């Protein structure tokens, strides 16, 4: 059965615990889109170089779109009807572009971009990566040449951070915290160190015993510079929230069948649900295939013993090891099915559950990705 999950979508957000193959499946969904004639872009915001890794490409240059042509895809056995584009987010570039879109060219923009805090922001604040990502997503979707954007997010706790980044951003920039803590520092620094606002001054003074006065002063200067951007930020944040909650977006929860991963996936799904997001799809990755039923012993065992003895010149533990492999497969399979059953019972009905099998090769090139796509979606 061909799964029509991507029909009518513009954005797929991949969420899930760490280590379950999110990036791999993001790439697979991108391939599926390309095979059904959509112009897709897979965007990864994970700082690790996984997308390139998963695709078996040497490198992706951060911030630069790489396109895989239909011919390249066909050479790996993938019947694509469109090319597939890939992009690894470069926080610094996205952020600079975002600021540049918000602030007209001129002295103010230059001062923001050159402020020492701006450079630090990009490197050290996790929230900033997420902000840069949603700016990038909106920007790419506004471009004509993308039908579907598949976004690969960092592991679960961060995934929630990712979706709620706009909201937090709004809270932070709106908050009077800045005004109360930081304004007095600014005012004081302009008035030559004298504090004018009494109430805010008290808080700021105490916090400064802790952070140092200069730090607050620098921060205040930066906040002041960026204050003009607040309106634009608010607008973009709301736009992003609306998009992720609309039917044009598919939130795809990815997990593996191990206990820890399933538990985390369940927690994540509930948290998302509680905050107004709907997971339309859950993909369980790397399922161990069912062991085959043994034929009656008398048909094969004696014969096998003789054959193995002849082949291996008397080494006797061979059959034992083979039995061991079968037992291992059985055990792993049974444990997995029990866990899966419980997991799927607790999923909401509107969340569709599909699975991807464990392949007998490591999925780290285009050919293997293509195989995985066929196993999941058929065709």
């Amino acid at each position: 059965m061909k799964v029509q999950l991507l029909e009518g979508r513009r954005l797929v957000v991949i969420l899930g615990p760490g280590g379950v193959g999110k990036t791999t499946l993001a790439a697979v969904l991108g391939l599926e889109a390309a095979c059904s004639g959509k112009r897709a872009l897979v965007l990864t915001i994970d700082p690790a170089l996984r997308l390139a890794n998963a695709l078996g490409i040497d490198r992706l240059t951060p911030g630069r779109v790489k396109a895989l042509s239909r011919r390249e895809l066909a050479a790996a056995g993938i019947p694509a009807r469109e090319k597939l584009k890939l992009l690894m987010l470069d926080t610094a570039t996205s952020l600079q572009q975002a600021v540049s879109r918000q602030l007209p060219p001129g002295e103010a923009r230059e001062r923001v971009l050159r402020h020492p805090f701006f450079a630090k922001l990009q490197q050290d604040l996790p929230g900033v990566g997420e902000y840069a990502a949603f700016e990038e997503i909106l920007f790419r979707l506004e471009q004509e040449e993308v039908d579907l954007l598949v976004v690969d997010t960092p592991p679960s706790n961060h995934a929630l951070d990712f979706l709620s980044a706009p909201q937090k951003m709004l809270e932070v920039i709106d908050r009077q915290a800045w005004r109360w803590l930081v304004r007095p520092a600014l005012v004081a620094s302009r008035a030559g160190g004298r504090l004018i606002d009494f109430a805010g001054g008290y808080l700021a003074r105490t916090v400064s015993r802790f952070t140092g006065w200069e730090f607050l002063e620098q921060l205040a200067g930066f906040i002041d510079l960026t204050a003009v951007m607040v309106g634009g930020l608010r607008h973009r944040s709301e736009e992003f929230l609306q998009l992720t909650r609309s039917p044009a977006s598919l939130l795809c929860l990815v997990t593996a069948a191990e206990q820890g991963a399933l538990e985390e996936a369940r927690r994540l799904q509930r948290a998302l649900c509680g905050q107004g997001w709907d997971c339309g799809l859950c993909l369980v990755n790397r399922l161990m295939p069912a062991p085959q039923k043994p034929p009656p012993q008398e048909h094969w065992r004696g014969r096998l013993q003789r054959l193995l003895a002849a082949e291996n010149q008397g080494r006797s533990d061979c059959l034992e090891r083979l039995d061991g492999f079968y037992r291992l497969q059985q055990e792993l399979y049974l444990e997995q099915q029990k866990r899966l059953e419980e997991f799927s019972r607790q999923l909401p009905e509107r969340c569709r559950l599909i699975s991807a099998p464990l392949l007998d090769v490591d999925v780290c090139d285009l050919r293997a990705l293509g195989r995985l796509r066929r196993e999941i979606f058929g065709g």
Partner: protein
Amino acid sequence: MMIVNSLPEDLLAGRLLLVSGKGGVGKSTLAAALALRAAREKPVRLVELGAETLPRMFGAPAACGGQLAPGVEWQKLSLERALETYGIIKLRLRLVYNAVFEHRLVKKFLQAMPVLADLMMLGHIAYLVEQQPHALVVVDGRATGSMRQMLEAPQAVLEAAPPGPLREAASWIQQVLFERGWSRLVLAVTLEELPVNEAVELYHAFRDRLNLATSLVTVNRVWGEALGPDLEQRCRKALQEAGAVHLDHALAMVQARLRIQQRHLERLQAGVPAPLLLLPEVIGASGQRLVQELAQALAAPGVFPRRVAS
């Protein structure tokens, strides 16, 4: 580098054991097992950052702290908690601390500055380490990327913040954690592409940027050894001739994964010059039982996979 059969001798001799690795490789379970193993020798403070998953692994209810096993004290380290310790030391007066740091606006401010939050958390760890010379603090660290960000927070502050209390704090933390030889780093991996890549990356990042060498890499969930290619081929031929289709299928499936595991083990050995300890896949155990089994495997790895009778 070399595969070892037991924990390196001086691993538990330090004051701080940091456990990290890619998400999903069994970091927390390993931290718990290491804590259990170390508790045979000295008191252990098991610290969890933000989450509350460890008590369940010891079969205890989640609370804000307490004893999880003989000699293992657990605590959850939150930003609030870290701030409190640090803030009170700095400001000396609890009253002032409460008035200011319990203030809604100040809390918002700190949450919006993750570098400061990371610095405070590390500050708390450094404080625990300095205060308890005879104990071992085991930190169930975050996943690679964010662990790195956290451990590099003091450096980030030293580079960016103007002189003042923040810099002093950062330089004290830097000293306690990285310059006195008290810390050991353990990386957990499973034999898969991405966990191995991240371990290699992290190993070099910590060594080069923090001067912190990885003391041990634990390789979790090892199934066992693959059959050699010759033997495999002979076996498959025999299986097909004898009509043992189920064994043939199982052999193909399991061998394929074992060969992949083997390849990743070789990559790991080439990329990370630290002792590697192989730990078995444990079948039939989860939670508390799994932690106990792994603690035993840390002392003597035993058979692969390890089976637990239910």
